[in-house]
């Protein structure tokens, strides 16, 4: 009777060993965990991508809330006036538009705004041609065996902590400039508009030009790396075509390569500009941190970032909290400027990262 079991044609029973209900308990726990893993990844990633966004919204909200009373009281003189006066902290507090602040307080950030723009402008004007030159040297003129270590050296320069750069600027570079380059500029430049800004006493090397030059050293690696990447993407054929037509390498660079990546370079420059606007430590140490518009390029001055870094301590002495609020407004102004510049830069870089030709866009 029992011998017929397992005869041909009988379908064997499903291997029950793998039945979920029969698994050993530990294995079952592991199984639940493993099937939950997908969800864990999904939700973990979802939360992680939202956290920085939440942090950003938090930062903007904090700034806006903190700055609101200051914006209400300071009004438009904040952008045109000059001088940060906490006011008399011993006198009676007065109220303007419902906001308490010490008597005689006045906040005008024009010198700081101007200073931020000036140092960044100097940095970009110096860094742009140097960076493009470097990118040419690295990608077109030097053999790979030389250009690779040099490119890495420039990369390392980008990694030097800004405070170390500032220390070098104030102890070594600034004084050297004040002794050599600055007198040369101040004594020999003609007295015409723009250039007469380079006239006057040269000081000891803490000032606008020193800050701008140190900043330019900081943003050169950024612009150089991006520009070199762009140059590598320019196809070889048009360049060879140019040379075949008898162009010199300067003409190829000018008419083919540069024209091919023009907007990319603009984006790279704006990226560097964004970095220069927000930079604090290298500027704090090298510009002298004096609260006024610089009469010439050698005079000490200050920027928004530097002012926040150095003055927040004294703002705490204002018991009404109005000084801290005014610094929040200052921080907000800086954030808006540099975020706008950065966004514009990224937009340009992204739009141009898929290269088209200078003549129409390749499909």
């Amino acid at each position: 009777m029992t011998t017929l079991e397992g005869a041909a044609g009988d379908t064997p029973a499903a291997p029950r060993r793998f039945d979920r209900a029969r698994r050993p308990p530990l294995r079952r726990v592991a199984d639940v965990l493993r099937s939950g893993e997908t969800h864990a990844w999904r939700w973990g990633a979802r939360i992680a991508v939202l956290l920085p966004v939440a942090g950003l919204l938090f930062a903007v909200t904090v700034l806006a809330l903190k700055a609101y009373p200051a914006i209400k009281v300071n009004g438009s003189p904040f952008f045109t006036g000059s001088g940060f006066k906490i006011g008399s902290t011993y006198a009676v507090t007065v109220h303007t538009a419902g906001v308490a602040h010490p008597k005689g307080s006045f906040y005008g950030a024009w010198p700081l705004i101007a200073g931020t723009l000036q140092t960044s402008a100097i940095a970009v004007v110096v860094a742009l041609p140097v960076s493009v030159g470097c990118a040419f040297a690295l990608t077109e003129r030097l053999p790979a065996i030389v250009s690779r270590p040099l490119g890495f050296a420039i990369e390392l320069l980008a990694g030097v902590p800004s405070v170390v750069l500032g220390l070098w600027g104030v102890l070594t570079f600034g004084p050297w400039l004040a002794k050599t380059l600055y007198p040369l500029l101040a004594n020999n430049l003609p007295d015409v508009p723009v250039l007469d800004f380079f006239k006057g006493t040269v000081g000891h090397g803490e000032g606008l030009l020193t800050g701008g030059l140190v900043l330019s050293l900081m943003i050169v690696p950024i612009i150089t790396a991006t520009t070199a990447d762009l140059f590598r993407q320019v196809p070889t054929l048009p360049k060879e075509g140019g040379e075949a037509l008898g162009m010199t390498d300067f003409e190829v660079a000018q008419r083919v390569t540069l024209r091919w990546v023009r907007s990319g370079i603009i984006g790279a420059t704006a990226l560097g500009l964004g970095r220069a606007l927000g930079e604090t430590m290298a500027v704090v140490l090298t510009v002298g941190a004096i609260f006024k518009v610089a009469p010439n390029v050698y005079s000490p001055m200050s920027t928004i970032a530097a002012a926040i870094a150095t003055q927040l301590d004294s703002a705490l002495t204002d018991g009404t909290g109005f000084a801290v609020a005014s610094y929040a407004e200052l921080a907000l102004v800086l954030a808006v400027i540099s975020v706008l510049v950065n966004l514009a830069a990224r937009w340009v870089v992204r739009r141009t990262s898929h290269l088209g030709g200078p003549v129409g866009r390749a499909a």
Partner: protein
Amino acid sequence: MPRKQRRVVFTVLFRLGTFLALALVLSPAAWLLASVVAKAVPHWRWSVLWTGLTSTGGGLLGPVTGTLILMAGVLVVAGSVGVLAGVHLSEMARPRKNGAEGGTWLRMASDVLSGFPSIVLGYVGYVALVVGLHWGFSLLPAVLILSLMVVPYIAKSTETALRQVPTAYREGAEALGMRTGDTLRKVVLRSAAPGIVTGLLIALAIAGGETAPLLFTAEFSRTLWTGALVHAHGFGYLTYVVYTFWDTPSKQANYLSYDAALILIAMVLLLLVAARLIVARTQRHSESRAR
């Protein structure tokens, strides 16, 4: 000047100009390195690494460990958040209905965040965390603000690394019936690991060299870390020593400032060289080496 001569002159000027530009960048860089070494080495004693700070001198044990602790904290917080965010942007964000890439808004927010000046983030940390939540100058607000600063960078480098993993790997894994989690861990993340680690190392170098966001979140302390995450009275780190000690009247303190700068540069160089070596190694082993 005749046209031919003009062309020759311009070309020669161009060639000279490119090398001049290179010299204009590399010579200050070399000078910077040389001057930090020249200022630090004559007074260098190894004991700065294991003696604590005193009011006029001493050693840098506190700041050195402080910077390392900050970097470890950033690695944990920003590392996990950034890598997961990168996974989301590369692997999970759904494409839009019009066929455009997903996650556009998230990327935009990330861009805005990386354009935020670090000093402003520090100010926010001071107002909201140090004062608002009564945390005081301590480790946690400093780590959080530093992390917020480098997270966009880590997310971006992770996303880039993940996108370089061939789609065929994922399809193969799916064809074998692997679960999403297994595919991510065993196939995608493993092949992208060198790129991710490189991004993490560079982010650590950035975090370790940062000063501005720490001024108002960690401030400074001469004592060693007590283990408190919040409610401490300041937290010591190297960049602050560089920033303030150089113009104090004490000669010993000035030397410490130069020493700190040297240690910082050595740390950053180590991290960047390590990152570079990883890149070089993986490039040697990858198929797509020839470009």
